[in-house]
């Protein structure tokens, strides 16, 4: 993993700890910020993200809710509309289906419909992605849905350092933010400065410089792509890894610049390939000046068009793995 030197003392934090620290540090300063969600109090959150926060902030600001995604998502919108800065934890990103009206028709559109009056500064944090054997209804990656709605901001941090900085930016932002945390990334760790810092939304991060192929990857896929890049380096293929960090707004310039340099683009995400954001990024590149620099057709890797299966081997086969990435890159370069 890469490290990034900051002024203050650096220490190794897991992704999960980084998220918790971001929320806690913000809540200590800002009364309006509070967390609501199912089993986030004593239980500490389905994945332990809010562990310990009940003791520090009490039940008023760590509000355990009934299992009513429709109500609690609407309540978050209402609270945000009237001055609060709620952080709603949706236990699994798959449950967004029950809260969809409040996200798509209320949160995203209120400011626009009310002619610029009112704002909905809320963050919807939710664990996403497969690999934990949770099967089809608890393993989905549906970021393409929310990315499709004007008025929403969609964030997918891949590392602890990014998670802390981006969550801070999300909470400070006056718009509704959908903040996807991949379950398998919770336990990865990286150097995280102790003091609060904010990473601007819409700025991609080159996780690895390279000149032969550009791979745009999101969330947990960034780790797999970096692993593949190490292998490919042995065969003399120099991969550049671009992590957009936020899907909306998308840092098009960085991706275009990279593709102009390498002339080859692979997009990798865990979500089902059909209708995934890979298609959006590919057409953005095809419509940009980078088109003239393409020396091979744009290639995408995404989940198979199947619900995520329970069996571990089938589960692995359902989403792109490191060997798939290596194979795809070779196909691109052999061109």
């Amino acid at each position, binding site marked *: 993993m890469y490290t990034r030197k900051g002024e203050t003392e650096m220490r190794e934090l897991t992704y999960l700890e980084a998220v918790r620290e971001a929320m806690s540090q913000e809540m200590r300063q800002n009364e309006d910020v*509070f967390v609501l969600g199912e089993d986030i109090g004593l239980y500490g959150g389905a994945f332990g993200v809010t562990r310990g926060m009940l003791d520090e902030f009490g039940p*008023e600001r760590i*509000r355990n*809710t*009934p299992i*009513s995604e*429709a*109500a*609690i*998502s*609407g*309540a*978050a*919108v*209402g*609270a*945000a*509309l*009237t*001055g*609060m800065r709620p952080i709603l934890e949706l236990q699994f990103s798959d449950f967004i289906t029950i809260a969809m*009206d*409040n996200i798509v*028709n*209320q949160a995203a559109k*209120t*400011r*626009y*419909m*009310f*002619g*610029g*009056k*009112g*704002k909905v*500064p809320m963050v919807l944090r939710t664990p996403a992605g497969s690999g934990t054997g949770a099967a089809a209804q608890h393993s989905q990656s549906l970021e393409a849905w929310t990315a499709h709605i*004007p*008025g929403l*901001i969609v964030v997918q941090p891949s590392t602890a350092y990014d998670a802390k900085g981006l969550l801070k930016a999300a909470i400070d*932002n*006056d*718009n509704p933010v959908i903040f996807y945390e991949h379950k398998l990334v919770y336990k990865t760790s990286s150097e995280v400065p102790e003091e609060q810092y904010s990473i601007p939304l819409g700025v991609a991060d080159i996780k690895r410089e390279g000149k032969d192929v550009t791979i745009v990857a999101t969330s947990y896929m960034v780790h797999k792509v970096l692993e593949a890049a190490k292998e490919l380096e042995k065969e003399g293929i120099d991969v550049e890894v671009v992590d957009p960090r936020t899907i909306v707004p998308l840092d098009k310039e960085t991706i275009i610049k990279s593709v102009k340099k390498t002339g080859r683009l692979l997009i990798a995400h865990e979500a089902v390939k059909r209708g995934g954001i890979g298609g959006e990024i590919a057409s953005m590149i095809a419509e940009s000046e980078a088109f003239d620099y393409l020396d091979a057709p744009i290639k995408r890797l995404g989940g198979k068009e199947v619900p995520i299966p329970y069996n571990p081997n089938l589960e692995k086969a359902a989403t792109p793995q490191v060997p798939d990435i290596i194979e795809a890159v070779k196909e691109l370069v052999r061109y």
Partner: protein
Amino acid sequence: MTLTTTKLPPHITNEKLIDMYKEMWLIRYFDEKVDQFFAKGAIHGTTHLAVGQEPSATGPIAALQPKDKITSTHRGHGHSIAKGTDVNRMMAELFGKVDGYCKGKGGSMHIADLEIGNLGANGIVAGGISIAVGAALTSKMKNSGYVVLCYFGDGASNEGAFHESVNLASVWGLPVVFFCENNQYGMSGSVKDMTNVENIADRAAAYGIPGKVVDGTDVIEMLNVTYEAVENARKGNGPSIIEAKTYRWKGHSKSDAKLYRTREEENEWKSRDGIKKFKELLIAEGLLTEEKAKELQQEAKKEIEDSVTFAQNSPEPTIDSLFEDVYA
């Protein structure tokens, strides 16, 4: 029941009563004028009119304190007017003009005025209920002391959001009053076919909160009952449900031939016109004379005519306003 014998909320003065009378005519003429323009195709899209439900807008909102907030529905012109939203800017919004409340981008179902506590109409059936709960949550957490009056219709009472929200409000004891305008029909679904309880208010018991049925044509009864529920909530005793039996004289929307109901039923409800009853009550109580009533009626009509002129003179929004306010 006469004014002198019933105890009115302290902030209701005689002038307020007269204002309430004129306000109801304002609400009626607004919806009639809008209906007229929609019939001529002069207004874009569709609208939902609440002609006949004026008392359930004016009565309950009259019970509120200025800091209290309301959430409205897709048939909410009356609620907005009763909460003090400016008819000129509302009419301009219906004409899609820049001076409209939403700069012409919201339309009839999204009129709102957050400064005066009007958290806005909502195009989604029961869309406003969980938002009202949220607003009440803020009031509780910041103990701002305001109560949220949450309007919804008989149709909305069968949405999942209604049950979850009322339960959440009751569990967290939130300062919100759920006010149901049961106008007998959810679009074409008669409430008798769609709801298996005599009164929607009866469902309050399911969430351990008080529920009360009132006459949707009696503005004074609604005033008092709402006042009681609102103050109870303000004291922290949690939410309650009030159901007003009322009737919408016009169709669900512009192209509704009202085949689902009989003319007799319509005429029977029209005969119990809340505005006329309130006029007779005020005259009986000596607070109003026939001429003054006519005068107030004409004033209201004039205000609505002026609102049309205002709307027509207001400029169209520029194309690049398309991209404004997507994000804060």
